[in-house]
């Protein structure tokens, strides 16, 4: 049986500690997402203007859908771009 000293890894296996991801809307009791607030919505959008997936942002399904609706409304009102490269 190989001991712990014999096993070598290329990268440290302790990297990437388990930070508990939470939905910020459920945690802080935010019930409504304003589509007019482009600064707030930019947190959920990547540098190309695309909506970030739930596994990255940590949102629950209910609030991820609301965020998506808000981002799409903001895009309609030209507060957020549909497609870009220079958002962040």
């Amino acid at each position: 049986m190989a001991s712990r000293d014999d096993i070598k890894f290329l990268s440290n296996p302790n990297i990437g500690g388990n930070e508990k991801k939470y939905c910020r809307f459920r945690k802080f009791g935010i019930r409504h997402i304003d589509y007019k607030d482009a600064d707030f919505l930019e947190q959920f959008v990547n540098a190309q203007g695309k909506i970030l997936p739930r596994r990255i942002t940590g949102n629950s399904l209910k609030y991820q859908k609301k965020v998506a609706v808000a981002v799409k409304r903001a895009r309609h009102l030209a507060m957020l771009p549909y497609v870009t490269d220079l958002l962040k």
Partner: protein
Amino acid sequence: MKNYEVTFIVDPVLSNDEIETTSKAYQTLVKDEGCSIVNVDRLGLKQLAYPINKRSSGVYYCIEFSGDTGAIIPKMELALRRDERIMRFLTVALDKYGVKYNEDKRAGKIGTVKKDKKEDKKEDKNSRGRNSRNSAKTPPPAAKKEEAAPVKKEEAAPVKKEVSAPAVVAASTPAPAAEVVTPETSVTPTPPAEAVAPVVAATAAVTTPPTAKSEEE
């Protein structure tokens, strides 16, 4: 009572008067239909994220109103569509959370997202601004107020305020004196006046130099 919000973008090449008359035209349209206007928000001239009708900026207006039926909505949208001065519009039906959000926003309870990476004295939308909506008190503004006038409080009513002063973190000289006072008052109840009076005199003496320093600064 159904609550609605209509946001529209007015052509910026028009004169200021024409832009205001367009928004007023829609306000009168809302009133004529028997709906009550809750709020008219002029978000002003903003850069568009992409060009609309070959324009790169526009004047944003947001009208929040409430009515019994939804009969006004098709009429208003038809008028907005026909109006050549309006580039885009969006009507939204607000639920109760949306109505409450707008009220809180008008009351100033909702903070904004920090753009710079500076340590926060302003409210962050994700933490304090939203948290303060649900909790009764807002600790950061209270802390600011206490920082601004801790000395005045202590000079005015030293005995009472020194009990609450330990909550103030930033005020360095009054805080140790306050911490000295509270254990004494709690541990020795029999000679409270004697113990407190000389300490009060000491703190008064201590606090006067800080006032001089702060006034100089």
